[in-house]
């Protein structure tokens, strides 16, 4: 519910916080600007774009799962173009080596003929990384990305190299082809802030896609001035959450733990491991983005509920019975969402 104009009863005797309100406006404008640019090229993926942008502003990483050709790569490329950031694409294959991702030390000879090692950065040294079909690489290669995702640095030959800021990994995986793939380990999945299921576009959207991509002139994406991106990210984290609202995130996370008394029946029966604390962090951070976008300066329970599926679905591990019964993490999370607030 949007706030209506204040009535005569309202008196502005509160401490002025116009600076924050201006910055909130800037945030909304930046967000909507990026979204607008991306939607010039992408059709029918509004919710995915919104989620990717949320991950972008809270410095999280997103895992996009969907069939080939649904625009996963286009989303990432468009974001990089709209944000004016350096983009890097890594196609994960079974023979991809860690050094292919993070870089390696090369022996180089200087003008005096002396030889020395020089670090040659890999594709991970970019602002926005597209890890395409990440489940096709071996776990060794996948884990090479872990340090960069979590620590924002890579270590080569004992030497640490910081990745540039901002740093966003957007990985894609194909859920259809399972042969020759290496499902991501739980620890690595947990490092993704959100897992987004990219769905098939509706008929109208498909028409629009054809309209935009089969003409002589494809729409061009222009960069949006973001100003101080760090400032916007700080603004998001400054949004207050009262304990009663925060309790909703805790409630949802604990509801997925089978050993907890707060768990829902489906979790008690079919879940092996529940969501980690990173899940609660993801819920609160994304909810803050939603609050700012909604013109509020506080988080509501509705904001948290809205992010429950993308933030928690990849953090649940269904047990064998659940797999056999066809129980999905989404069902468990939906049951948790049905809990009274």
């Amino acid at each position, binding site marked *: *519910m949007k*706030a209506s104009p204040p009535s005569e009863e309202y008196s502005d005797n509160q401490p002025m916080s116009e600076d*924050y309100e201006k910055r909130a406006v800037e945030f909304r404008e930046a967000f909507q600007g990026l979204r607008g640019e991306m939607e010039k090229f992408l059709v029918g993926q509004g919710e995915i774009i919104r989620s990717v942008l949320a991950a972008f502003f809270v410095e999280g990483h997103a895992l996009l799962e969907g069939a080939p050709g649904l625009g996963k790569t286009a989303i990432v490329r468009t974001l990089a173009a709209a944000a004016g950031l350096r983009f890097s694409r890594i196609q994960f294959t079974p023979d991809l080596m860690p050094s292919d991702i993070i870089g390696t030390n090369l022996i180089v000879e200087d003008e005096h003929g002396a030889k020395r090692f020089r670090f040659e950065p890999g594709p991970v040294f970019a602002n926005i990384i597209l890890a395409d079909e990440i489940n096709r690489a071996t776990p060794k290669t996948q884990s090479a990305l872990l340090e960069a995702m979590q620590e924002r640095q890579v270590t080569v030959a004992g030497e640490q190299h910081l990745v540039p800021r901002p740093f966003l990994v957007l990985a894609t995986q194909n859920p259809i082809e399972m042969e020759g793939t290496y499902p991501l380990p739980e620890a690595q999945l947990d490092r993704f802030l959100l897992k987004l299921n990219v769905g098939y576009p509706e008929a109208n959207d498909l028409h629009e896609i054809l309209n935009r991509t089969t003409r002589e002139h494809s729409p061009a994406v222009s960069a949006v001035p973001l100003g101080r991106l760090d400032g916007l990210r700080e603004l998001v984290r400054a949004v207050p959450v009262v*304990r009663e609202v925060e309790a909703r995130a805790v409630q949802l996370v604990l509801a997925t733990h089978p050993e907890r008394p707060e768990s829902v029946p489906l979790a008690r029966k079919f879940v092996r491991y529940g969501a980690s604390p990173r899940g609660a962090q993801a819920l609160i951070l994304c909810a803050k983005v939603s609050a700012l976008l909604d013109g509020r300066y*506080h988080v*509501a329970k509705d904001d948290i509920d809205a992010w429950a599926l993308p933030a928690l679905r990849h953090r649940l591990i269904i047990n064998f019975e659940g797999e056999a019964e066809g129980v999905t993490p989404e069902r468990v999370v939906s049951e948790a969402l049905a809990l009274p607030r």
Partner: protein
Amino acid sequence: MDAIVVRRLREAQRRLVLQQFIDYAVPGLFAGLAVFAVSRIAAASIPAAEVPWWAAVAISLILAALAAMRRWRSLRSVALELDARAKTKDRFLTALALPPSETRPFLGAVRRETSMFASTLRPREHLALRIPVGKALWLLLPIIALGLWEGVRVWQARGLAPELATAQELIEQARRAAELEADKDEALQRIAEQLQGAEHQLNLSTEPLREALRTLSDLEQRLSSQSSLDAGEAGALAEALSRNHGELASNLRAGRNAEAAKNLAKLDPAELATALEQAARHLEARRLRELATQSGAAAKMQLGVMLGSSSADGKEGGRRRFVAALRDIRNGTPVADRDPSRQIEGAEASPGNEKSPSHAADNAPPSGLPGTEKDFGRGEDIAQQAEPLSSAASSEDFVEGEIGDGTSLIALFRAAGNDDPHARRVYRNAYQTAAPAALDAVSREQIPAGSRLLVRRYFEAIRPKE
């Protein structure tokens, strides 16, 4: 906390309490009416179990109000409800939970935004009162049950109408009887008051026993005054005797009681009993019937006394004689110790002897002073000369001559101390009439124990021999 937010929350709180009261009042009234219906039904066998309807309803409503206020006593719960109903995105909950002491700029922005929002919100629009009509229908159940129960009772009452009328009639009769008993109680109350006065005198007088006995003699006098034969009874008796005893009948009709008494003394006891029975049947007179059931001699004696009492000028004398007899008893003067010539009546009395010593002794001063053994209740004659009772100037009219084989009542009382069984029986009757009433009055009133004991001891002293 922002004042506007608090104001809105209070407004919502009142609204929620009212709605909650309505929600609770329906089941509360249901329970109250159910309790009332059950108590009403149970009251048929246990009258104390009935609960007034207003009490059941009032208690239900009070409990509902208290429960509603308790449910929404905290603003936090109100904020939660208001946020949920008005879809405020937890603005009120956030405004309520913000730390008041913290002054971070972003918190200021939050307060500003929530306050602006609260100023535009009207809780009334989101918390509309609703009547739980579906639940309210349940209230009909106890009402219908109660109506059925009352209907059955009314129907049963119609069937019992004759019995009810009979019962009401019986109650009315009982009420009348109670009123009659109340009249008797009043008479006893008067006696008790007299006894209380006597006791008072008993405490003040130097001769307590004498004064008390005086009062008792007055009481006996009053009782004896009721024994006169009235005109109806005399007429009925004359009618019964007219066939075989014309003279007696004519004397009775003419009011010549002295002559009638003489004739009566000569009458056969069996005939007298028959005549009394006829007269009693004719007149429905209880006294005559009682006389008829007595022995012939006793009946004759009693009738003689009654005739003497009912004579125009002999009423006072009869009472005096009765009192004198009581005084004799009171003074403990045995009949045998007395001078026979002083006996005022009886078979030994000389009829028509105007100078009878007994008559002279009745009025002879100073021995005739009230309270003395010579006092026969004629205090007014103390200053006068001794005057024969049978003289023309005297107001007394003794039954002269022989009135029968038996003795007079006074003589009987005088002889009661001896071994005459008949005298003792009559005396016992007189004692049994006066003593219980007096003792009962004494025991019921607030009388000092010593004085009460004195009265009892007096009655013990004059108790007839077994």
